[in-house]
């Protein structure tokens, strides 16, 4: 018998989602500029926490998160654009949920296609393949008339709210934390520490790596969908290699495999460029310098306190 009532972890998830929705209902009172940034923060939390499952816990190195985000974003946006005129106002939330789900699902399927051949190999192949994959997605988007090609996809309905974003961020955090904090999930870290030893302990490394990769891709797709319905405009250049790097930096800065640290890093690194707007053209230089300094000062990650991880596992 499964228990019907939420226990420890599930209660936190529920609390997070309710809180997001409640706060969201007051969001009309917020400054629109700040509201936009807060939603950016939520989307980046989803991206960083989901990438952390791949790059942090499982010890792989994916550079394709922007690519999955693009797959999810374009899918969800196109779906909304086509379907929203046919759906009555009251069913908009359902439509949005389906759009996000579709975006996530397609990203996950693409992730499966990229992951299965690549993750059989050990080492840096994943980085190279996902780098290429991200570029391919971008070029495809740039040349497909149906999604606006180079001029971008315009007029996407504004469905993303603070409530949606943070409710889904709570789901992402819950899924990653619940997976890793189980006997099953210790396998992800085992694979990251020593693949050979893991396979001798009955852990199928390829299966774990693909699971992490596909789960991460799914949430990147969902984040893409939120992003599309937040900005109401998608352009292929928004999903370039640098976007992937941004997310990787959040994971590294937060401390690989430390969910709480990665969340804080996602918040900081989203707010930082906004705070630095006063410096105009020096903004990105200062941003980069700060990251370099942080990495020198704390190579193990800013918030990596209890579970220190020394270098790459053999």
């Amino acid at each position, binding site marked *: 018998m499964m228990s019907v009532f939420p226990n420890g972890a599930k209660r936190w998830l529920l609390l997070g989602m309710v809180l997001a929705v409640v706060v969201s209902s007051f969001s009309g009172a917020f400054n629109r500029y700040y509201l936009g940034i807060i939603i950016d923060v939520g989307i980046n939390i989803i991206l960083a926490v989901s990438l952390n499952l791949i790059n942090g816990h499982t010890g792989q190195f994916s550079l394709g998160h922007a690519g999955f985000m693009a797959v999810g974003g374009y899918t969800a946006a196109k779906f909304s654009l086509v379907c929203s005129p046919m759906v009555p106002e009251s069913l908009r939330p359902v439509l949005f949920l389906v759009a996000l789900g579709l975006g996530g699902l397609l990203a996950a399927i693409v992730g499966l296609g990229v992951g299965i051949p690549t993750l059989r190999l050990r080492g840096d192949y994943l980085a190279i393949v996902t780098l290429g994959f991200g570029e391919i997605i971008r070029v495809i988007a740039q040349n497909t008339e149906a999604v606006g090609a180079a001029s971008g996809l315009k007029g996407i309905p504004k469905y993303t709210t603070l409530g949606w974003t943070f409710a889904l961020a709570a789901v992402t955090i819950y899924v990653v934390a619940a997976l890793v904090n189980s006997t099953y999930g210790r396998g992800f*870290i085992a694979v990251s520490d020593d693949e050979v030893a893991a*396979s001798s302990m009955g852990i199928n490394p390829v299966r774990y790596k693909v699971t992490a990769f596909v789960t991460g891709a799914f949430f990147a797709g969902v984040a893409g969908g939120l992003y599309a319905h937040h900005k109401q405009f998608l352009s292929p250049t928004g999903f370039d290699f640098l976007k992937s790097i941004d997310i990787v930096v959040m994971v590294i800065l937060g401390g690989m495999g430390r969910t709480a640290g990665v969340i804080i890093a996602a918040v900081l690194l989203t707010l930082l460029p906004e705070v630095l707007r006063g410096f105009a053209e020096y903004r990105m230089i200062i941003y980069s310098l700060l990251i370099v300094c942080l990495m020198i000062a704390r190579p193990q990650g800013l918030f990596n306190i209890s579970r220190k991880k020394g270098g790459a596992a053999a």
Partner: protein
Amino acid sequence: MSAPLLDVQSATIRFGGLTAVCDLNLRIETNELVGLIGPNGAGKTTAFNLISGVYRPTEGRIFLEGSRICQKRPHQLTKLGIARTFQNIRLFGSLSVFDNVRAATQVHRKHGISSALWRGRAFREGEQAVEREVLDLLAIFDLARFRDEEAKSLPYGDQRRLEIVRALATKPKLLLLDEPAAGMNPTEKEELMRLIQFIKDKFHIAILLVEHDMKVVMGICQRIAVLEYGKKIAEGTPDAIQKDPKVIAAYLGTEDEEVTCDA
């Protein structure tokens, strides 16, 4: 007549032109302690890797309890009942001592992704059972006090012990130990011998021991197989092996050989 626990039938493996193990026959019965020895480069570790599924034999077959296993991957073999340790300790360094052992218990569990996400009662009870099981194992081997330490921060001898405990957590029928005495001092070796004997009696499993240290091997093994240049040159009780002229020749060389070497 039941099939032996492990039955290696004329297994051969070649790497390019090099035949690392040639026509190896080896049987291990339930709850038997067998030693595999040989000079450096004799193919001990390769033979070990054949049995644990890291390599697949070029020729020959390997059976576990009568079913063919030579096409299986290591994680599948673990599920069937073969567990191993490594010559150069390979723990999950960033995981705690507790989690190192816990990760190894997953192999026989049904709770996968969906129950980890749903966290229902069956899952929680399962996790509690795992916790008790792991703590019991750690207590038996006097590692409970390190429970929350990072595995890589443990002293060398304890790391070796933890690796054995981790292998036992997969509930093996056959435990493969790859040079467990490497890097140990005489006192630690004594302890290790007692430990191996204890594991065999307590868990009723078969153990295949690959080892350099003659004292350890001769002291505890019931049967010993000797490899040289990838071929098995002798097999028998420790006493018989110690007197076997071929074994002595392999380890110390013969006068004839010295002459041919000089020539």
